[in-house]
Every structure is written in C-alpha cells, then in structure tokens.
C-alpha cells in the first residue's frame, strides 16, 4: 500500500513548481501541474507547450527532477503522467532523426 506524502512535502513540491518551475517553462508556453506525492515519488502532468513536446523528457529528467531532488532530497523520483499524444501545441515537434 502506498503512503501518501506528508502535507508538508507535497506543499513544498507545489511551492517549487509555483515559484521556480512554472515561471521557467512558461517561456515555452508550458506549465506543470502536481498530481500527487506518494512514497516520496512525485507525480505530475505537463501541459501547454510541454504536452507532446519533443524535449519534454529532457525538461522532466534533467531539469524538473534534478531541481526537485536537489531542493527536496527525500524525493526519489519524478514521474510524468501526461498523455503526450493529446498535445496540440507542442513547443518542439519531433522530426526524422
């Protein structure tokens, strides 16, 4: 059975998203929404220009996850639950390579 995050951890993740992550990804018309924190895993979705973006995984793993883990070392993983196939305005569209 998974363990829900303490309100404190969830609110600290939310605070990071609100104050650091979303202002940054807004530059590409994107936004990140926190879904939940369970067992020290952060579940989120990516919207706007991030949804379906060819660079979304880079943003998530090398940017968002690294930032959250640095600020909140108890977080073990950040997982993207976005349905990227439904993105209609991705910032980067993948091409042939």
């Amino acid at each position, binding site marked *: 059975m998974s363990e829900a995050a303490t309100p404190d951890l969830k609110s600290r993740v939310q605070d990071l998203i609100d104050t*650091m*992550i979303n202002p*940054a*990804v*807004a*530059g*590409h018309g*994107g936004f990140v929404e926190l879904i939940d924190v369970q067992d020290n895993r952060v579940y989120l979705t990516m919207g706007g220009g991030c949804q*379906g973006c*060819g*660079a*979304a*995984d*880079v*943003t998530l*793993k*090398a*940017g*968002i996850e*690294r*930032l959250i883990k*640095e600020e909140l070392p108890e977080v073990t993983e950040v997982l993207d639950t976005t349905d990227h*196939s439904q*993105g*209609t*305005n*991705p910032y*980067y*569209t*993948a*091409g*042939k*390579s």
Partner: protein
Amino acid sequence: MGGSARLLLLLPTRTYRTEDFVDAARTLGVDLVCASEKPSTLEALAPDGLLTLDFADPESAAAIVATWSVERPLAGVAGVDDVTAAAAATIAERLGLRASAPAAVATARDKFQMRQCLAAAGVPVPRFRRIALGENPVLAARGVEFPCVLKPLSLSASRGVIRANTTEQFVVAFERIAALLARDDVTVSGDAARYVLAEEYVPGLEVALEGLLIQGRLHPLALFDKPDPLEGPFFEETIYVTPSRLPEAVQRAIRDTTAAACAGLGLTEGPVHAELRVNDDGPWVLEVAARSIGGLCSRTLRFGTGMTLEEIILRHALGWSIATLERERPAAGVMMIPTPRAGVLKEVQGLDAAKATRHIEDVVISAHVGQELIPLPEGWQYLGFIFARASTPADVEDALRVAHSRLRFVVD
C-alpha cells in the same frame, strides 16, 4: 555497475529519440546530463543537468564540455543522430572517452566523402558524382547515366532523395533539391549547402543493418528487410522487418560488406546504421551512418532478457559490460506511417482498431492534430509508427499492413 556515473546525452530538440534514450539512462541509473542546440527553459535552474551546445560546431561544443566537466567529470557521451554523433565523437576524443574518431564520423556524414572513401576501400558503391548547385543542371545531366538518383549530401531519412530517368526529370529534381536546401527548416552548411550528389540507381532489394562497433569489430544486431519496393521517384521508408528472410549466404555477404564499409571509413566504436541494396551482383552500400536507427524504430529491438538498443548504446559509451548482443527470438517490425499528402492534420480515425490488430504491439501517432504535414521529398516527419511482433516475419509484415489499413488520417 551504475549509480553515480555521469553521462552526457546530445539530444536535438526535435529528435524522436529523446524518450527512449532518457528511459535507458534512467534504467541504467546514471547521472544524466542533456545537451540540446537550444537552451532549455530550466538550464539556469539546473546547470548540472542541462547544457546548450552548437552541435554544428563540434570543436566549440567540445571546448564548452571540457570546461564544464572539470568539476563534473563525465564517464560517457552519446549522440543520437548524424549531427550529434559528430559532436559526440569530438567531445569524446577531447575527454578521452569511447567513440570513433571524429574524422571518420564526419566522413560518414557527408555522402560524397563517404562514397569516395568506400570506393577507395574497394567497397561496392553506386557510381557517383558531386555537382555544385551553381552548375547548369542541363549540362550537369550530360555527365550522368540514367536512371540516376539525386540527393543532398547530408540530410537523412530519404529527405530530398529523387530518382531521375531523363534529363528533364534530372533538372526538375536538381532544382527541387536546391530549393529544399534553402528552406528555413534545413540547417546545412559548407559543402552540404553547395552541392548535390548524383549517383547510379541500383536496382534490387533494400535492407538495413543495425550494428555496434566495439574496438573496430562490427557486431550485427539486426538485419531488417524492407518489403515495400523503393524504386522512386521518391524513397519513402515504410516497413522494416527483422529477421531478414534473405538466404543466409546473402545475409552473410551483407554483414561482411557492412563490416568492410565501417573499416574503410575508419569507424571503430559505437552504433552504426547501414543501408544496402542487394541484387545479382551482391550487396551495394548506400549509406553507413555512425548512429543508430532513426525515428522510433528501435522499439522493435530487444536483446537478451529485454534490454533496449538505447541501453546497449549507453552501456557501450560508458565502457560498461553488455551481457548479450543477441536479439530476442520472435520476429519484429515497424511501419513508419507515410504522410499521404500536404495539409493540416485534422483527425486520426481507426486508432483503436489498428491497435487491436493481431500481433500489433503498439501504434504511436507522433504527429499532432493541427500539425502541418509535408510529404517527401521536402518533408521530414512521419505521421507515426506501428509496431508488431510475431513468430514469423511474414506475420509481422501482414499485421503492419492490416493495422495501417485501419487507420485514416483526415487532412485538410
């Protein structure tokens, strides 16, 4: 082995390969650093994980990484396409990491240089000629035999590749490629922006060999048949199926010819993707790229107990052991869904029916609703990919065709 090893992945912002390489890095537990040609919006917040590099200038990219890595030592570097493979090789050489020599990778990137090098090494290649875009195409056509194929020096995935059977078709193709090279979405420079290649059209079956070079030895990973005829005027890739149904002796000749091509180019380390034609005269090398297969096609491949191609590539780049390079037993295949015509994608119908087709593993629509579609030879994107796995290559091919027939793309 794993844990704290730091790996630099060179990922163009528009590559299909990001998800699979990032997943592989996560599986391996490496400390992943991603570099792109355009800055990430998060780079300032995560400078240990994100870099911006000019992939078109490998020397400057290597200088930046050398400085950056003084306090963040790297255990490996990997590119994912032709452009980033060249940058990765230069970075690897500078840092003493595992990769082919930058000169060899650069030669493989330029179709003219590659053919010169292979011909000099005695590897069968079509007769070829480089033609400056400033030349009069009518006069240039006098110097080639028909049918011939015109192509840019450095674009991939059949972009700009056109067959010409007559002088009139040659001129049209020549001008079409010149216009393509001038497009905003084409980033070529140097010779690649000034020349086209005209080469003999080689009739026959086409195959693709995926391999990994380790200390100069080619380890074939998969040989794909391309059952749809590629006779022009454009050369749109559709179905790839492995294992090959060609006779073992022919397959051996393909492997041997590819190994000779790699040796002729001086490639010694990392993934290679080779395209060959096969006819009564044997295999002919069309391309040997110092990278792995493009698009999402690598998802057809699994090794040992489920290792992905990307995991193998990253393990090799890191100098880690690889338990096996043997592909799983079932046949597998992919269909790159062709773009039917130019327009804006309005809707995709029949997706559930396509996914429900027997032996179909997945259907990924990579184009998004509202996207402008540009067919070959100017286009560079697929509508998506269909993946199948079955006990025989024939079942795989049938499944791919049935699934594709159930899809309908509404384009306005």
